[in-house]
């Protein structure tokens, strides 16, 4: 038995190594692409901003809100790399009774990496908290967050085992909300009150976790999760280099799907239709929406405070617009190798033209929406130069520079194919 367990542990290590080996060449391409330079720039800019902030925390700085917004995700997020593949349902499932050894390796890996991230965020937050007038003892806070982190991992595992998708989502949402509440309590209220609240929440959740039906070992869920993680890696690499085609993960996104039937029916809209569906429902759409929300929030804060006469918001807008543009560029790789592209009776240059049309519409919509929170507070506050400049720059880029570049790229890629 112990020997069989050891063999599974070896399998785990081999798979982890194989994955590292698989992604290494892509990391090298990323390193050569100028992305590290962009990251360093971002790092330097954030470091300057950060040290400026802790030297002189403004009295109206949303101390507690920032703490909750940054600490909640790193405490709740509990990714699990299991390296499981669909074929494991045939080959590893017979050894389910020994899978504990295998899974423990995954859990340990997940706990270590996500705890390092959480610790880093906590260490960055502590000086802000102390200088911003936070009064609670940070050592006690650290212990509480450690407990929350452990509970988060436990909860995430229980959720993975739940048989029904709806229960899983409900519990995950509950866990995130309660964690946010507990963090808020630890930052704001006397320690004993916060501790009491935390233990009540934990007991409540622990009791609730007993209610839904569970699977002994959630094979399908873990395989699906592993597949999604892999896809994320590859869609990130896809921004720098051609990657093997991985089928996209799909979400219905009803709040955007209503747009699809509004695309005019007709041969010269067929590809607009297809790529609009791809944009709305694949991971790219999800990432763009998250970027839009985050970018909107950060730019709004910068605009509301009128940092650097409004140019703070402009910089934040530019950074998020850049990342969103980069992300949208990945859309042309979705369905790149589909057989229908060659079968449908549509000329190739027509396909390119339709794609460029969709790209322009999507980018214009996204960047215009992002412009609102970055600019309205400034315009209302009487700062005109920054918001008008970024609007002008955005329009020139989206309507003139980007379409020409995109067409060139598409032509080049079509020749390569």
């Amino acid at each position: 038995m112990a020997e069989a367990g050891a063999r599974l542990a070896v399998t785990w290590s081999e798979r982890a190594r194989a994955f590292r080996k698989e992604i290494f060449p892509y990391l090298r391409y990323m390193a050569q692409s100028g992305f590290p330079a962009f990251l360093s720039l971002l790092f330097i800019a954030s470091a300057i901003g950060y040290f400026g902030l802790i030297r002189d925390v403004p009295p109206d700085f949303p101390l507690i809100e920032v703490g909750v917004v940054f600490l909640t995700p790193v405490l709740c997020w509990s990714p699990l790399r299991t390296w499981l593949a669909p074929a494991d349902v045939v080959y590893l499932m017979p050894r389910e009774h020994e899978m504990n050894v295998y899974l423990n390796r995954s859990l340990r890996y997940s706990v270590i990496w996500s705890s390092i991230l959480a610790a880093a965020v906590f260490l960055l937050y502590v000086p802000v908290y102390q200088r911003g007038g936070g009064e609670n003892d940070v050592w006690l806070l650290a212990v509480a967050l450690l407990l929350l982190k452990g509970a988060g991992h436990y909860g995430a595992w229980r959720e993975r085992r739940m048989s029904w998708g709806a229960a899983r989502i409900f519990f995950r949402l509950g866990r995130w909300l309660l964690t946010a509440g507990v963090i808020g309590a630890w930052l704001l209220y006397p320690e004993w009150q916060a501790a009491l609240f935390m233990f009540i929440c934990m007991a409540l959740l622990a009791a609730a976790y007993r209610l839904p039906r569970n699977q002994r070992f959630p094979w399908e869920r873990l395989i699906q999760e592993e597949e999604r993680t892999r896809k994320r890696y590859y869609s990130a690499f896809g921004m720098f280099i051609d990657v093997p085609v991985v089928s996209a993960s799909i979400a219905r996104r009803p709040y955007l799907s209503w747009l699809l039937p509004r695309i005019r029916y007709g041969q010269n809209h067929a590809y607009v239709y297809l790529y609009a569906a791809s944009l709305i429902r694949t991971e790219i759409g999800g990432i763009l929406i998250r970027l839009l929300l985050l970018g909107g929030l950060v730019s709004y804060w910068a605009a509301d405070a009128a940092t650097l006469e409004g140019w703070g918001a402009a910089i934040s807008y530019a950074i998020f617009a850049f990342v969103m543009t980069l992300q949208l560029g990945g859309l042309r790789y979705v369905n790149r190798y589909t057989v229908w592209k060659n079968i449908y009776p549509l000329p190739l240059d027509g396909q390119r033209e339709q794609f460029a049309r969709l790209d322009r519409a999507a980018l214009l919509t996204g960047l215009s929406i992002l412009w609102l929170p970055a600019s309205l507070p400034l315009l209302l506050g009487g700062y005109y130069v920054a918001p008008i400049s970024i609007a002008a720059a955005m329009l020139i880029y989206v309507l003139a520079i980007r379409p020409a570049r995109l067409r060139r790229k598409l032509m080049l890629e079509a020749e390569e194919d």
Partner: protein
Amino acid sequence: MERMLDVMNKMDKVLQVSGLTGGYSPKRPVLHEIEFSIRPGEMVGLIGLNGAGKSTTIKHILGLLTPQQGEVEVAGVRLAQHPEKYRSAFAYVPESPVLFDELTVEEHLRLAGMAYGVPGQDYETRAEELLIEFQMVPKRRAFAAHLSKGMRQKVMIMSALLASPPLYIIDEPFLGLDPLGIRSLLDRLVEVKRSGAAILMSSHILSTVEAYCDSFIVMHQGRIAAQGKLENIRSAAGFQEGTGSLEDAFYRLVAGGES
């Protein structure tokens, strides 16, 4: 599309494959000197063992592979001559369903309608009819990724039928289909055939092929071992006139066995 069908009816051949030698690599051709044609209103069964060259032949017709020798004409034109005319003349149902994960059943039909230039009004009626006929109404809003293999195959078939082209190229259409699905497909094929469309269908279900097809192409090791009506296949296999089924003849042709 219907006007195109009229033109086709007047034409002699919808599909003409002449002296086709080809495959994936110029060093090792898979197909050798393939020669056949299909007329409007004809249903042709393409049969052969695994690896006989059926799918490679189909890929050449689709224009996904380039012939080393010979040529393929659809609707009287080669792909290089008139890509749009060539491509709008046929619809293709692949062996394993290839759908877009991000589209629902209904959206696939809409995309096919748009791609093939089906007029809006016709699209609405045809899509509705097809959804009902293939028992897919409850699944119309389901994503392709959530469908069973048979249902995915149905979506492929429905998309092809929706386009209503002069030529259908159908690769192993019965895999994974439930009995009702097979029945609906065959009924529909008979119907489109009557309306003048041509069908090239590859399948291993020889009894169905025999019952529904007008003529047959037996492929073996990249060559055509026999082609024509059932009598031609039988006599090529050395059967007396009026004796032996397609299966018997096929067995003798490809395995060299005594049936």
